[in-house]
């Protein structure tokens, strides 16, 4: 049924439809609307889940590690500082091969305090073994959350569904909320191979000496490789029932493009408009939206951008001492491809600053007029004042 939903509530609806059994959370802006709606559903009987009101994000994920190992479907949501506090247990959840699903609302890291959109929080967790899916709009948030359970439970890895603070979490859009019966058809009850059971006493996560540890880590990478294929299958199955698919990497008019803009999250929507405007003026520009960040779809990206003469990556995030993080990944994906196009990195929109059509268009013209990239990252729209502070 078509409803006008806030992005946060698109997550909540998906979690209800996925028949999640244990939810655990600690409040942080801008994640709160997701959990408030779910706590209402649990309180009024719309959901048969246990809702755990724990005393920190660290405990929120710890509780889900306990619940998931006990064989039930689980959910939490967090943001920024909360995700950073979970860091240790992000490793634990993937190392324990638990199909936990988390909504992560991209918010800037402090200091200074900043509650607005910025991807550095989730990208700083890229090495923790979680599948990461970046969403662009409300419908995608709902669909991706439901799909994530199928994906997580088939590869035994946790999944982060990632949405921009406010631009997506607090924006109302028309969203088609599927019927429960259809979701049940797509997503059967969770049936783990192993779980805590007094009738079959096993030890989980025990001491793993050097002769076994490395194989355990190799298995996680094998599961990540499998997740690349599995993601496409899950999308196909979802498409066959609901008629919607998003793709790990979505190319828009890339076939004949000389310059391809690479985006993620809500910057993609604005870029679609810029693409249309530039195309109308005869510019050969394409757009590549990266949804699946872990596992990183290297082959797809190589294939889709290699015909272009230049690639421009827009990063609402930064790795200090290096560059924008999507740009790093795209460069790494291309480096062994002979004759690959140069990759221009642009940093924009940190801490919730608007990435307007004018900024994206500026990025396009800068790329078109440049020969080769002169720096790893160009910071778009930096004021003189900021430069002065930077050298202190």
């Amino acid at each position, binding site marked *: 049924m078509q409803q006008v939903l806030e992005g946060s509530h698109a997550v909540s609806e998906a979690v209800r439809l996925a028949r999640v059994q244990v939810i655990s959370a600690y409040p942080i802006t801008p994640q709160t609307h997701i959990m408030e709606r779910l706590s209402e559903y649990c309180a009024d009987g719309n959901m048969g889940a246990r809702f755990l009101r724990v005393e920190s994000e660290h405990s929120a994920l710890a509780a889900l590690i*306990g619940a998931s190992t006990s064989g*039930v479907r689980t959910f939490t949501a967090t943001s920024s500082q909360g995700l950073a506090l979970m860091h240790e247990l992000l490793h634990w959840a993937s190392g324990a091969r638990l199909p936990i699903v988390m909504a992560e609302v991209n918010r800037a890291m402090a200091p200074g305090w900043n509650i607005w959109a910025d991807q550095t929080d989730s990208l700083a967790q890229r090495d923790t073994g979680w599948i990461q899916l970046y969403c662009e709009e409300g419908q995608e948030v709902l669909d991706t959350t439901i799909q994530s359970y199928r994906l997580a439970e088939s590869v035994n890895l946790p999944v982060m569904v990632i949405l921009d603070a406010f631009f997506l979490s607090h924006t109302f859009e028309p969203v088609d909320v599927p019927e429960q019966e259809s979701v049940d058809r797509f997503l059967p009850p969770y049936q783990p191979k192993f779980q805590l059971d007094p009738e079959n006493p096993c030890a989980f996560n025990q001491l793993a000496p050097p002769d076994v540890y490395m194989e355990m880590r190799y298995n996680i990478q094998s599961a990540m490789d499998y997740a690349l294929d599995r993601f496409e299958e899950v999308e196909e199955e979802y498409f066959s029932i609901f008629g919607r698919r998003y793709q790990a990497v979505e190319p828009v008019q890339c076939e004949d493009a000389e310059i391809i803009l690479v985006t993620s999250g809500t910057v993609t929507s604005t870029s679609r408009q810029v693409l249309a405007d530039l195309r109308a003026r005869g510019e050969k520009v394409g757009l590549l939206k990266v949804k699946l960040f872990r596992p990183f779809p290297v082959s797809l990206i190589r294939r889709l951008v290699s015909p272009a003469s230049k690639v421009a990556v827009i990063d609402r995030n930064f790795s200090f001492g290096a560059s924008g993080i999507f740009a790093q990944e795209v460069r790494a994906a291309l480096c062994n491809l002979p004759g690959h196009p140069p990759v221009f990195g642009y940093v924009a929109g940190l801490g919730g600053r608007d990435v307007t059509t004018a900024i994206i268009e500026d990025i396009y013209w800068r790329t078109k007029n440049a020969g080769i990239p002169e720096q790893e990252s160009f910071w778009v729209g930096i004021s003189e004042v900021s430069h002065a502070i930077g050298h202190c």
Partner: protein
Amino acid sequence: MRLDTVDQEYMYSGHVGCPGCGAAIAMRFFLKAIGKRTIMVIPACCWSVIAGPYPQSTLKIPVLHTAFETGGAVATGVRAALDIKGDSETTVVTWAGDGGTFDIGFQALSGAVERNENFLYVCYDNEAYMNTGVQRSSSTPYGAWTTTTPGQEWKRLRKKNIVEALCAHRIPYAATASIAFPEDLVQKAKKAKAMTGSRFIHIFSSCPTGWRMPSEMSVKIARMAVQTNIFPLYEVEEGLRYTINYTPKGYLVNEYFRLQGRFKHLTEGDLASIQEMVNEDWELLRRKAGEYSS
């Protein structure tokens, strides 16, 4: 008193604890009391190692090893999952050391107890970070040498009173127990198992390695800790009703300290001060038991 549970064994040979390990004795007696329908959460502690490396386990109950500070939270999640699956029979137990209870895990424990989560938390207390090589914790007693309180920097701060901290949460049941008093330990574990809500048992578990004493002294020292009132055996219901389970004849503390290398630097004057502290704590406990006797 005869132990009718003595024949049941859930801890098998092959554990990798040190000779004379009090934590191993504590686990063995506790499991006899708690029985088969148990799921145990073990945050980082000596028992993360004692249980043995993959793919073996010395424990014949399901065990979830987890991160250091998560004992209260992981058990919360296990309990929630069992509840949603309709399993009300299985007891969820967190089994943690003093570091994971008094220090790094205190927040998660406090949170779980404030929510009155339906689980039993056991702290086996060997009074320092023994697994990492004897570093001081907030459970390390006044006067003790550790590798981080060496030489004349020995710990001049009192041990945190964890039972009192939990009583401040109005926890339904909190008790102390000792590996030297197995009947009392078994009885308290069984009593706790039969209750609902948050329950806490604090087991004094001597550590020959960290306390610098011969392994055969383990049980004797634990007994002396009770007999000198250094570690009284008592229980508290609803954080209010105190019962002292064992009233010793009032041995002086000197002998207890003299037998352990970790205290060898203490002077007669230091021991006299410690005796005063022990007397003061014991009187305080007796007053509480007198005011709120059950």
